[in-house]
């Protein structure tokens, strides 16, 4: 039985590695040809897992073969629009200038129910608010509201707002993220000082520490307490 377990471990690790090498993190981000590959990897890995008479290599080599195919398809898709259209399909505009394109929806096999479900998922309960909606090749709907219904921006209010940039995750699960700490322009000594000001004595007690573009430090400890939020003043 231990050998069965070892085969499962090997095949699982190989399958996960294959999926990671495909370069996507979530199933939702897969193009159709990648989804097929993902399903096939699962099927192929299962056969030697279930049947001890099937050599392990009969699971590993087909997975390698799928990686070869994936590489070829990806490379061709980059080089050729025609191949890209063939493998990915093309996005379709299902709502144009506020009006549903029924012919397009029929061509894509996209029902009104599907459309309304996707719009609600994006926070639009009222279809009359939508100017344009595009059904992407990955099956997701991108909806763009009419200008009058779009969220207000600083530009609309004639306000000046400086770019704050991305926040930096400095500590995760008690471990300092050296790369992000460097990118934020600080060092570990600075971070320890800031934590001490908040009453946090040990780095390993920190679940998450994040510094945003306005130099505000957010620290959540592993103990179930309220997070500390403190401006750091930008001091190095």
């Amino acid at each position, binding site marked *: 039985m231990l050998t069965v377990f070892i085969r499962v471990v090997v095949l699982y690790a190989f399958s996960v590695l294959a999926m990671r090498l495909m*370069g996507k993190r979530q199933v939702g981000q897969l193009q159709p040809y990648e989804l097929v590959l993902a399903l096939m990897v699962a099927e192929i890995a299962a056969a030697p897992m279930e049947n001890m008479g099937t050599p392990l290599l*009969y699971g590993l080599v087909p997975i390698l073969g799928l990686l070869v195919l994936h590489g070829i398809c990806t490379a061709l898709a980059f080089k050729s629009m025609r191949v890209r259209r063939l493998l990915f399909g093309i996005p379709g505009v299902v709502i144009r200038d506020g009006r549903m394109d029924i012919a397009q929806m029929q061509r894509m096999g996209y029902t009104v129910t599907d459309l309304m479900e996707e719009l609600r998922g994006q926070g639009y309960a009222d279809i009359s608010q939508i100017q344009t909606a595009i059904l992407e090749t990955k099956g997701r709907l991108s909806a763009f509201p009419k200008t009058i219904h779009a969220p207000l921006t600083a530009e609309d209010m004639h306000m000046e707002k400086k770019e704050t940039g991305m926040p930096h995750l400095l500590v995760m699960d008690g471990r300092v993220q050296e790369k992000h700490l460097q990118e934020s322009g600080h060092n570990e000594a600075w971070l320890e000082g800031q934590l001490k000001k908040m009453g946090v004595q040990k780095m390993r007690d920190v679940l998450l520490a994040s510094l945003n573009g306005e130099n505000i430090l957010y620290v959540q400890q592993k103990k179930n307490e309220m997070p500390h939020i403190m401006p750091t003043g930008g001091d190095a």
Partner: protein
Amino acid sequence: MRQAVWVAVVSMAAILLLSWYADGARRNIGFELIERRHAMLEQVKHNDMEKAMESVMDAEKWWREKEETLALFTHHELTDAVGDWLTQILLAIEADREYELYAGLEGLENAARRLHEQDAFLLKNIL
């Protein structure tokens, strides 16, 4: 894209290397098994049962060593079948059962040919 291409190249190289090693090993072992079986058959035809028995026992010992290598890339059902046929031949010689002896030799030949031709680049294997 570059990563995908590199992964594809490395995977293809691994497949070709494994194919070359596995198919080569399987073909050679299959061929030797066919030759050993042929020698057994000649000995049986000439009624040299003592020599035939020695050949079978020697073949069994040889097969046990090869089975370990073959287990990596050959269906165990096939490797088990060869072992079973060798045992049947040995028992048939010991018990002087001619029908089972020839059946065993025939079964061994079929198994050896399957081993020799498995995964060979033949249309029947692809289809």
